């Protein structure tokens, strides 16, 4: 009997250790970025153009570029992804076509991001003649995030009890009215979770924008969707590997801004989500 207690304690100890091993890298990354990057943060760093071959000045165009890319790609992929998920989960019959579509979505999620970059280059930049531009980059990133949005939206729709649908239908509501008034409102928090996940992915992705939108050095702000922009992940790569004699805190400062930007956008989305949850 006592033996069992010891065994259980060892078991819990192992579980705790595994949990700590997960948390430690996260804390280390945050500590590293903060300690080495904090000193770079200044008004000049955040809100001015880079100077002296990016060794001085700020990273403002890269911040703006990443912000635009996130907004534009989510504006493209969220509606399409949500509508596709509604169709697949609420309307589509379980037949060969639906199964092929599902398989395609799963595979789309497994394609590596550099392949998406090449795809975006051939389709949007060259074939559709959008050029290296925000629109090409945002569409490429949007397609890349579609599987995440479709999958999380479908899970959210499935989590709404079947009985809500039946009650709504039994009260004379049409199928669309049922989806609109008795399914979507309760799936919205889950759908927003998908959007939040996508924001992080879009903001941090480097390979696809390399082919389709990112500029090496462009010290001005974009005016239209057909302009090139600098973007934080690519800028981070450049300042870390391509430019010698750059202050170290510029590198970590850029990383800190990237992480911070994603955090701010996530928090905004979480606040919106909790507002919807409360309205229930």
């Amino acid at each position, binding site marked *: 009997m006592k033996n069992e207690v010891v065994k259980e304690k060892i078991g819990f100890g192992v579980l705790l250790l595994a949990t700590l091993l997960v948390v430690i890298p996260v804390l280390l990354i945050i500590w590293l970025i903060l300690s080495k990057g904090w000193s770079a943060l200044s008004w000049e760093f955040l809100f001015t153009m880079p100077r002296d071959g990016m060794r001085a000045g700020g990273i403002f165009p890269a911040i703006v570029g990443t912000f635009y890319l996130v907004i534009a790609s989510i504006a493209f992929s969220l509606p399409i992804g949500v509508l596709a998920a509604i169709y697949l989960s609420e309307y589509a*019959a*379980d037949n060969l076509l639906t199964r092929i579509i599902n398989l395609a979505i799963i595979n789309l999620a497994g394609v590596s991001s550099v392949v998406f970059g090449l795809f975006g280059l051939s389709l949007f930049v060259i074939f559709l003649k959008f050029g290296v531009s925000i629109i090409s980059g945002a569409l490429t990133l949007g397609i890349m995030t579609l599987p995440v949005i479709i999958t999380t939206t479908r899970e959210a729709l499935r989590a709404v*009890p079947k*009985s*809500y649908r*039946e*009650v*709504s*239908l*039994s*009260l*004379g*509501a*049409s199928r669309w*009215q049922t989806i609109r*008034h*008795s399914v979507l409102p*309760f799936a919205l928090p889950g759908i927003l979770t998908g959007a939040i996940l996508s924001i992080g992915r879009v903001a941090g992705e480097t390979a696809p924008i390399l082919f389709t939108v990112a500029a090496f050095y462009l010290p001005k702000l974009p005016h239209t969707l057909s302009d090139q922009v600098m973007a934080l992940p690519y800028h981070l790569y450049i300042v870390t590997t391509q430019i010698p004699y750059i202050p170290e805190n510029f590198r970590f400062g850029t990383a800190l801004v990237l992480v911070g930007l994603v955090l701010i956008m996530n928090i905004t989305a979480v606040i919106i989500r909790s507002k919807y949850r409360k309205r*229930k």
Partner: protein
Amino acid sequence: MGHAEKKRCDMTDRREANNSSAGQADHPDPKIKVRELTIHYGKVRVLNNLSLDIQKNEILSVIGPANSGKTSFLRSLNRLNDFEPNIRMSGSILLDGRNIYKDLDAEGLRKRVGMIFALPIPLPRSIHDNITYGPRLAGDHDKSALDQLVEDSLKAAYLWDEVKDRLRSSALKLSGGQQQRLCIARTLALKPEVILFDEPCSGLDPISTAKVEESMMELKKNHTIVLVTNNTKQAARVGTRTAFFLMGDLVEIDSTEKIFTAPADLRTNDYIIGRFG
């Protein structure tokens, strides 16, 4: 095998005999007329060649063990079966002489044939919103009319006094019995002609059950009611007539008194005295 088939034939004969006597006779103009209704889910036949009439202002209790097809039957009356994948149906259901699958649209039908589910399922909205859900979606936005409708419906479901001060609070905060009466009120707000009850008291305590049964007896005056129940005593208490289903077949339909005192079929007798099911 041969024995089972013989038994089935036997059963069919007896059912037809019943149909011609109590199932279809006396009233020439039934509210609902079901003819040769057969339902398959995939390869499984859940309802076999069912024919019966439901009269105006009666409570028809449908009893039978699990998998007897009684819920499938109920859900075909308001076309809630439409959304089952792999369902195949044949036969006809007439409401006031009109085929509900051909002459009526599903939404219009469901407003005339309301349904109360086994578990109370209030939508996660306020009491007021729950009751006005159907009418609002049907395009009724007159605030004072809706308020009046809420009051009338809640009164008819014996819930008004308990909730009149908190109509705007969440329906999920009500007790189980109150929730089921709210569901009744919500269905009444559509002013249905027929109300289908699908084991409405299976999750309720005896006092709540008594209240739901009381409201059923009251509703009978102006509505036609079909009650599917696993509780044979409930069928005996409220049913005008009772039908006994077994494995997708209608074994017997007759006045509740006859079914519970002198059933024509041995299997009905076995079921109501609790020998199986």
